């Protein structure tokens, strides 16, 4: 693996007695990376430390060769990092083009560069004629794209995106995810993406880091974390499934009821042979509408990492136990 984009050594941040970051080491690789964690897990604190907005109680962080934890680099690190904050934020009274060019100039671009650059990034996020209008009247989707544009104004090597899809409707969310995906996968930007919507992270990021209670509880490649474990095939069947199941069992395959009506087929060896399943389906006269190896979703990975047992009826097909819901229901009157 190439040089890490961010490397953190024993980083501690205390607010009074609360240890928001509890002294961990972390190397964040290049490319799009998802930073996950429940509320209060220290994500925001970490972002602020990386931007040099907070001074750590202990420890070191290096971002692209800068040390935002030290006084000398506290400001200069922000010339190579673009930050898209979570909440609504605009500069009062300005149009989009003014906002982006002003912020670009503050970063250090010359006036003419700043103007060119502002138009380019606004083209990129597809804010067209609206860019000349005051930003107060913008829709949520436009505001979010504007925030992304301003983060790109100085063409930073690293983007910190805090909940970029928050409050967007499906169309706006798709647009935003397309942009983030393009930035990370095609334009080769390093991205640290915080999101509560794990589907978004799964779609745009190659790597994830899960924080919980101020420490790193899981990290790795998305593809590896969600990789298929064991030879379990998930099949959805239309038609006489009873006969199909009989046939499967006759062929020596174990089956069980999946959630949402699917069928789980346990293969004796590691390499399931789906052709055989289709053959049996043909004999049983049933149609197969879905077939795939069981993978865990990022949600399962996340919930396990933060110590919550995933619930079976999530949109993925995890373990069939219904145990966790009792937690919520036990106190029912």
């Amino acid at each position, binding site marked *: 693996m190439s040089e890490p984009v961010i490397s953190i050594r024993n980083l501690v941040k205390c607010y009074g007695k609360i240890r928001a970051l509890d002294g961990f080491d972390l190397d964040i690789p290049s490319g799009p990376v998802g930073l996950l964690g429940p509320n209060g897990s220290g994500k925001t604190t970490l972002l602020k430390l990386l*931007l040099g907005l*907070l001074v750590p109680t202990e420890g070191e962080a290096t971002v692209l060769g800068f040390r935002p934890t030290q006084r000398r680099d506290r400001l200069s690190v922000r010339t190579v990092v673009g930050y898209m904050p979570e909440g609504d934020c605009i500069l009062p*009274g300005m149009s989009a083009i003014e906002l982006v060019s*002003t912020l670009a*100039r*503050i970063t250090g671009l010359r006036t003419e560069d700043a103007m060119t650059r502002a138009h380019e990034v606004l083209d*990129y996020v597809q804010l067209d004629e609206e860019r000349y209008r005051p930003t107060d009247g913008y829709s949520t989707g436009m505001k979010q794209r504007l925030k992304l544009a301003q983060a790109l104004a100085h063409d930073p090597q690293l983007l910190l995106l805090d909940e970029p899809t928050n409050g967007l409707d499906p169309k706006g969310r798709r647009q935003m995810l397309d942009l983030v995906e393009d930035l990370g996968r095609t334009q080769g930007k390093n991205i640290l993406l915080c999101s509560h919507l794990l589907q978004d992270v799964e779609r745009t990021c190659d790597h994830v880091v899960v924080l919980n209670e101020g420490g790193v509880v899981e990290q790795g490649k998305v593809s590896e974390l969600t990789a298929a474990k064991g030879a379990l095939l998930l099949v959805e069947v239309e038609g006489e499934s009873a006969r199909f199941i009989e046939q499967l069992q006759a062929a020596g395959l174990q089956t069980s009821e999946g959630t949402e009506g699917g069928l789980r087929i346990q293969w004796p060896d590691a390499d399931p042979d789906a052709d055989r399943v289709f053959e049996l389906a043909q004999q049983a006269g049933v149609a197969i509408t879905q077939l795939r190896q069981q993978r865990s979703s990022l949600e399962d990975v996340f919930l396990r990492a933060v110590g919550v047992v995933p619930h079976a009826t999530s949109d993925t097909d995890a373990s069939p136990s219904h145990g966790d819901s009792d937690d919520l229901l036990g106190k029912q009157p």
Partner: protein
Amino acid sequence: MRASTHTEIYRPFTGTLREHPRRWVTIGVSSAKQGFKRKLPALLLFTPVAIGCVIACFRVYFRFQLLSGDLVNINSPGAAGITLMVTETLGDVVSNIFTYTQGMAFFSLMIVAWYGAGLIAEDRRLGANLLYFSRPISRLDYLLGKGAGAAFFGFLALTLPCLLVCSVATFTSPEWSFIVEEWASILKVILFSSIWVGTVTVLVLTISSLVGRKSHALIGIIGAIVLSSGVSTVLAHLFNENSFSLLNLFQNFERLGEWMFDRWNPDRKVTITQTAAALGGLWTLCLFILAVRVRKMEVVA
């Protein structure tokens, strides 16, 4: 010509960053620019300023005209007396400027308040601090920029008209006598108006940093001024104790002007040192509050 396509949707930035960007200037300019966007308040606020300035200029102009004898034949016996009387009434340049600054103290305060009240409050309300502080600016840059933005309008309202009066005086005075003899007054005028504009700016920004809306900041500023002036007047009357007038910003300003332009009123019970201490105290308090509030804005970002 070689064929090429330019279909890339994201273009990397190939230029370089400035070596020594004056980031606060950018903030100051953009803050000032925002002020010019609305025309009606500018018209209303600057009309009295313009009128006051024109009157002061005319008085200075007439006086020099009278003194040089262009208007009246100075040799006719009756005219001499009248001229003397009129020039006396018109007053010299410095007293005109002094009168102007005193007359405009309230208006310049209102102008700085109008343009400066929203600078920090609205930034907080709309989350602009999140955007500013993700850029390589220090808190000082931010404060300087915002201060420059607000002070610019104070400068337009007070310093610039004073300089206009001075230039009228320069051009109409016989043999450039004004600039030759009274150049020090011009510097004093600049210094004096800058102190007032600076004080007012710092006060306005402080109040702006304490509230979450421009309108609240405006109410706060007017409230603070009215309250402090009222309380000081009432207390001074009740206890027959002049030191309460130190609470009154306008009176401090007046005393400072009297002292700087050598027109100290000997009846005053408050010394210039006390006045300076009062103004210094106000500055210290305001800068302290600003430092704390802006630090909070940065950390929250």
